[in-house]
């Protein structure tokens, strides 16, 4: 192959041509562009005329199209460009510096925004150095959201302490960083969220925010913050156009429902409450227009339906939904002269939220308010009956509904309807509940000054009851008087002032009440005789009733019945707060006299003091313990004299009572020991039997130990808190290179600040 001599002499056009080819080939190579720019700059001979440099500017501008948006090379390129202009054209320099802030961000129109911003030259200089040094960090940032976050946080940190006029550019830089980070780590919802929050709360520029929102909508619709912000933004967008807004909200929620993952109950709650708030606000502003309210209903129902559809489990229990409805309806009711319309709407709501007791109760309180007309009362009753029927078997709901009904009837209904209510409730409810209702109703009626009528009614009712139940033991008069006494005694004061009553009616509730006090905060160890001895200092004690569990363990409270009513007032003075068995006693007026009466009839259960629980007894051996036949019995007999054996239902465990506490201790020592029984070995279980003194003692010891443990733990925890930061600091230094880069640049900034100052 021959070489033509001429070709070795290169001319400028050839080189330029080559550059064009190279750029066509490698358009994103920053180095190549840099070389091209270098060439153009070198070709310009001396002289400071602006026009001479236009060829260079042309290349710069072309490069800016490709490199300016590059998230690694972008900042370096803009630095180059601004360096170039800084010594040549001041106007252009300022312009470039502004563009530099924005143009590294691939958003259309960003450059335009940058031009419009009025940033002072000194700030630009600062920004310039900031961006330049940061770009060196950026090279080390791989698509790791955490690093980008740190980076943005670092810049934000630097903005602190600046004058307000200087903070804004920083915010823009942070914005840029976040956007670039989010773009380079596409999958990071976190960065997009940060970006959104930053644009909304730091930059506070509606244009920027709307731009960001549109970008995020395209790129990361999974971001929940996006949708929340859209909801918020819709309000400001629509201004005063209520109809437009309330139509827009469901549309946004609809989109969000499609995009967002299901498993975020908090999010949906937030959505709902947010749209709820918006609707509410509009209700306040436009609530005077019935058509708006109607539309509001429709749209709000759509929102709640959408969310319900997405997350049914969570939705079921939400009360918030009902609040808006009821509020709006209330308003509607006040506005419109036609109650039937409101009634229709209420019916509609009950249908939409079937089984929601809150809705039902609100609807009912509306019906009963009188605003809906007299016919509404009957409607309410019908609704209640229906609801009670539907919820049959559901104790909680039934009770709530019944209580509500009773409440409403006693407030708004007449006596007849109250009676009807009671009889209806009687059909569906148990006796105890009815008794409760009666007391409640009795109080309320008394408030209204109609106690007599009620008691008559109640008597009638009780006759029915007694006949139906054919229960001869409790006479109805007795029961009624009981109820009255109890409802009276809730006031408490009049009792002790009524000694006359006690004389002519010995043993009645009033009289017993006057003679007794209720003591709480007793030690579990205190026995009846202990308490009796303690209280005898104030007067002769008639009896003490200790409140126990079914198993005979003291619950720590007791009723003390004195022989004379005068002792009661002495007790309050003398023994209130005094210590018995290590606990300070609290003395209250006695109330539960019916129980006391009942209890006095029963023989008190003796605490089995020297007994143990023996478990895992081989089949057939349990019955032989007392006789002493089997190996088990022999083992137990070694501990001491056995007084009695009570074999429990399952036949493999028994409560064994010994003569004294020594033998109990020995028997407890047998726990988990192996006992030979024929060819097999069995491990025996011996525990203090429940309700015995021993168990109470052991339990208290255990509690004391636990308390001590907690205290020790707290002691240990305190130095731990002090140590934590030290550990963290240690960890930080071990994190690898990218953070180190940040640390270095931190130093760099410190130096920079020093230089500046």
């Amino acid at each position, binding site marked *: *192959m021959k*070489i*033509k001599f001429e*070709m*070795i002499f*290169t*001319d*400028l056009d*050839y*080189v330029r041509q*080559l*550059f064009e*080819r*190279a750029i066509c*080939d*490698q358009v994103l*190579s920053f*180095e*190549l562009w*840099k*070389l*091209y720019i*270098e*060439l153009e*700059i*070198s*070709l310009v001979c001396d002289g400071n005329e602006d026009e001479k440099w236009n060829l260079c500017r042309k290349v710069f501008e072309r490069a800016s199209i490709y490199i300016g948006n590059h998230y690694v090379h972008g900042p370096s390129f803009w630095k*180059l460009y601004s*360096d170039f202009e800084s010594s040549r054209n001041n106007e252009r320099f300022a312009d470039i510096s502004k563009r530099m802030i924005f143009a590294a961000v691939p958003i259309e129109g960003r450059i335009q925004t940058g031009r419009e911003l009025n940033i002072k030259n000194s700030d630009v200089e600062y920004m310039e150095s900031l961006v330049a040094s940061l770009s060196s960090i950026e090279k080390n940032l791989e698509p790791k959201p955490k690093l980008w976050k740190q980076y943005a946080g670092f810049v934000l940190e630097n903005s602190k302490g600046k004058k307000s006029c200087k903070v804004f550019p920083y915010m823009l830089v942070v914005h840029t960083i976040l956007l670039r980070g989010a773009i380079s780590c596409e999958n990071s919802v976190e960065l997009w969220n940060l970006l959104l929050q930053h644009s909304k709360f730091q930059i506070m520029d509606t244009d920027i925010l709307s731009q960001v929102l549109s970008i995020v909508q395209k790129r990361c619709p999974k971001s929940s913050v996006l949708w929340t912000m859209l909801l918020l933004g819709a309000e400001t967008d629509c201004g005063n156009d209520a109809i437009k807004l309330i139509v827009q909200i469901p549309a946004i929620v609809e989109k969000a429902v499609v995009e967002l993952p299901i498993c975020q109950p908090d999010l949906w709650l937030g959505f709902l409450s947010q749209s709820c708030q918006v609707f509410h606000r509009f209700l306040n502003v436009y609530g005077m227009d019935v058509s708006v309210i109607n539309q509001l209903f429709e749209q709000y129902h759509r929102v709640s339906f959408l969310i319900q559809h997405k997350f049914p489990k969570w939705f079921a229990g939400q009360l918030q939904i009902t609040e808006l409805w009821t509020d709006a309806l209330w308003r509607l009711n006040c506005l419109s002269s036609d109650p039937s319309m409101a009634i229709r709407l209420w019916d509609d709501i009950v249908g939409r939220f079937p089984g929601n007791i809150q809705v039902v109760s609100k609807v009912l309180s509306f019906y009963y308010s009188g605003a809906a007309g007299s016919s509404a009362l009957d409607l309410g009753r019908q609704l209640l009956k229906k609801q009670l029927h539907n919820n049959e078997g559901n104790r909680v709901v039934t009770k709530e509904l019944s209580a509500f009904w009773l409440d409403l009837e006693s407030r708004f209904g007449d006596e007849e309807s109250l009676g009807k209510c009671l009889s209806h409730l009687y059909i569906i409810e148990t006796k105890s509940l009815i008794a409760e209702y009666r007391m409640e109703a009795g109080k309320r009626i008394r408030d209204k000054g109609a106690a007599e009528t009620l008691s008559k009614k109640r008597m009638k009712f009780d006759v029915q009851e007694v006949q139906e139940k054919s229960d001869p033991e409790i006479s109805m008069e007795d029961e009624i008087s009981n109820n009255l006494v109890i409802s009276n005694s809730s006031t408490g004061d009049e009792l002790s002032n009524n000694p006359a009553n006690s004389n002519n009616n010995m043993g009645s509730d009033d009289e017993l009440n006057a003679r007794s006090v209720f003591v709480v905060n007793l030690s579990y160890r205190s026995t009846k005789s202990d308490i009796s001895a303690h209280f005898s200092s104030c007067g002769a004690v008639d009896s003490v009733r200790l409140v126990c569990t079914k198993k005979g363990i003291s619950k720590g409270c007791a009723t003390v019945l004195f022989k004379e009513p005068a002792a009661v007032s002495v007790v309050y003075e003398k023994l209130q707060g005094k210590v018995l068995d290590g606990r300070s006693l609290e003395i209250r007026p006695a109330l539960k006299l019916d129980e006391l009466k009942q209890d006095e009839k029963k023989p008190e259960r003796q605490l089995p003091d020297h007994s143990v629980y023996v478990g895992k007894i081989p089949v057939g051996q349990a019955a032989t313990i007392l006789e002493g036949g089997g190996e088990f019995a022999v083992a137990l007999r070694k501990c001491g004299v056995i007084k009695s054996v009570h074999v429990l239902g399952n036949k493999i465990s028994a409560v064994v009572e010994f003569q004294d506490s020594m033998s109990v201790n020995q028997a407890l020592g047998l726990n988990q020991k192996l006992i030979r029984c024929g060819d097999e070995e069995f491990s025996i279980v011996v525990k203090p039997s429940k309700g015995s003194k021993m168990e109470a003692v052991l339990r208290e010891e255990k509690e004391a130990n636990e308390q001590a443990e907690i205290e020790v733990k707290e002691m240990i925890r305190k130095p731990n808190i002090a140590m934590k930061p030290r550990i963290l600091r240690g960890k930080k230094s071990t994190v690898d290179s990218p953070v180190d880069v940040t640390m270095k640049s931190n130093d760099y900034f410190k130096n920079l600040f020093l230089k500046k100052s």
Partner: protein
Amino acid sequence: MSSDDEVDVEGLRANVRHNTQDAACHLRLIDALRNEGDLGEVRIARECFASLGAMPATSWIEWLGDESRLIGVVGNGTLFEN
């Protein structure tokens, strides 16, 4: 010295002829010719490589640096250092 190198260059040329799509062969040939200082030959080899459309950015930069130097421009990326 030169004879060995020339054989080498010829071998590389043959290689390129046989494996026109192999970028490594092209790069080796360009390197060898560049070391020889035969600018005409280098340019031809580079044109040949560039026509394949697979020349890496570094090769372009090298080439453009060389050509810039020929027309008296520094072209080594040092202009912006200061």
